[in-house]
């Protein structure tokens, strides 16, 4: 296993994304039938730039009622390595939560068909904020602006309508001072069960910022032929167990299988390079029992 520390300051210059959101939105509009689109999917702010913004667009033919609220929710996992995000609106105890001091404007709006609205965020962090990264979730809720109840077609009849309310929860990161992104591999558990190899990768973030990168997983048979490959976007905030499965029923060559893991800060296409804090790399391999 190879681990390497890399300290990086966040670049101050070149933080203006100009037309990207518009391009991304435009590319997607053609496919949207009715809904609201949010871009980007991560908001970055820091001590020098205490404001941020997202764009909300309604490409549908109906007006949409939009509400914005701040919440908290990090990617976490259960003991089986299933990753999920649980939103938490109150009782937040994580010291890295920025939920209480980042405010969105506006918080409510009616978005007409084809309209675009910029939502701005203003951070008012505590004065004694220590260096590191602080997090919140921006929850954009949208529903039909004008809900029409269906009329029963006959006297004495009953009709129903279920309003479909849509929420997108995107990450907001506020950075203070020097940033270090580092991930530690606590262990790897691999199990071979009939037609499936299941691997749980146990990780912890040991920096003062989230570790964002890619996780590459490969499975080899006894002849050293690669018989499975999985790649994941990886974000480690505190602790994270990530389950990786490889169906092996159709592969030739057998046990003992070997597993290779490569974690790298490179390869993310969804986040501009200037916002990525380059963390360490991890290489690990094992032969399954």
């Amino acid at each position, binding site marked *: 296993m190879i681990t390497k520390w890399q300290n990086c300051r966040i670049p101050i210059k070149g933080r203006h994304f100009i037309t990207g959101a518009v391009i991304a939105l435009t590319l997607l509009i053609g496919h949207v*039938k009715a809904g609201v689109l949010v*871009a980007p999917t991560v908001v970055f702010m820091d001590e020098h730039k205490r404001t941020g913004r997202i764009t909300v667009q309604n490409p549908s033919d109906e007006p949409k009622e939009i509400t914005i609220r701040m919440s908290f929710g990090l990617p976490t996992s259960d003991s089986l390595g299933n990753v999920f995000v649980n939103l938490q609106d109150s009782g937040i105890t994580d010291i890295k939560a920025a939920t209480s001091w980042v405010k969105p404007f506006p918080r409510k709006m009616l978005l007409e068909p084809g309209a675009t609205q910029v939502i701005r965020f203003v951070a008012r962090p505590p004065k004694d904020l220590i260096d590191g990264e602080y997090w919140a979730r921006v929850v954009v809720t949208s529903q039909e602006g004008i809900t029409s109840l269906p009329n029963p077609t006959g006297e004495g009849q009953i009709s129903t*309508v279920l309003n479909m309310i849509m929420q997108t929860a995107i990450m907001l990161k506020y950075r203070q001072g020097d940033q270090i992104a580092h991930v530690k591999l606590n262990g790897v558990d691999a199990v071979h069960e009939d037609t499936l190899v299941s691997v749980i990768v146990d990780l912890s973030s040991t920096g003062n910022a989230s570790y964002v990168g890619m996780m590459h997983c490969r499975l080899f048979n006894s002849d050293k032929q690669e018989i499975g490959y999985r790649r994941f976007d990886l974000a480690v905030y505190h602790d994270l167990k990530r389950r990786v499965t490889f169906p092996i029923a159709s592969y030739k060559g057998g046990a003992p299988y070997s597993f290779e893991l490569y974690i790298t800060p490179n390869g993310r296409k969804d986040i501009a390079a200037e916002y990525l804090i380059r963390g360490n790399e991890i290489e690990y391999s094992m032969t399954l029992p």
Partner: protein
Amino acid sequence: MNKRGVGRKFAAVVVVAIICFSLSVTSVRAQDVATGTATATVLAALSVIAAQNLIFGNIYQGVAATVANNIDASSGIFNILGQGSAGISISIVLPQFIALANGSDRMTIGFSSTDATVDSNNTTPATVVAGDGWINTNPNNLPAGTVIGAAGQTNIYLGGRVYPSVDQTAGAYSGDIILTVAYNGT
């Protein structure tokens, strides 16, 4: 030199000038293109769309009504659009009852542990198969390994049932279904 010769020379000069001018214009345009500002950065976007409500239609007192999750015309349909193959966390908050607008009566609504389907291949409720995602899964506990399909879209299909009582007040009942989506790799 006669006038014809001068005229020919003048014409030749004009032609050369036009060609030079054209080349210079082309060059200028080419330079414009070459030096034009192209600083756009495509940002990842995320969109959740309610493509179709869960439609029970008219129902009758004392007669439960069911909509399966594989009916193109009436299953609830959510579309999630974003970065292809990105891991997402999805959850649905389902109502336990729906009510008249004035709140004077309400009706029980239920969702079983097989009322949802996750389709990462962008098919339809009626045509989705097991290889497209998760068929007949629990809407209260959607699969943790869900990703946005390689083509940039994943659909959720939802069924359910309502239980009108024998003395259910006639009228239009409504309730909310809330789908929340978050990337789990950012």
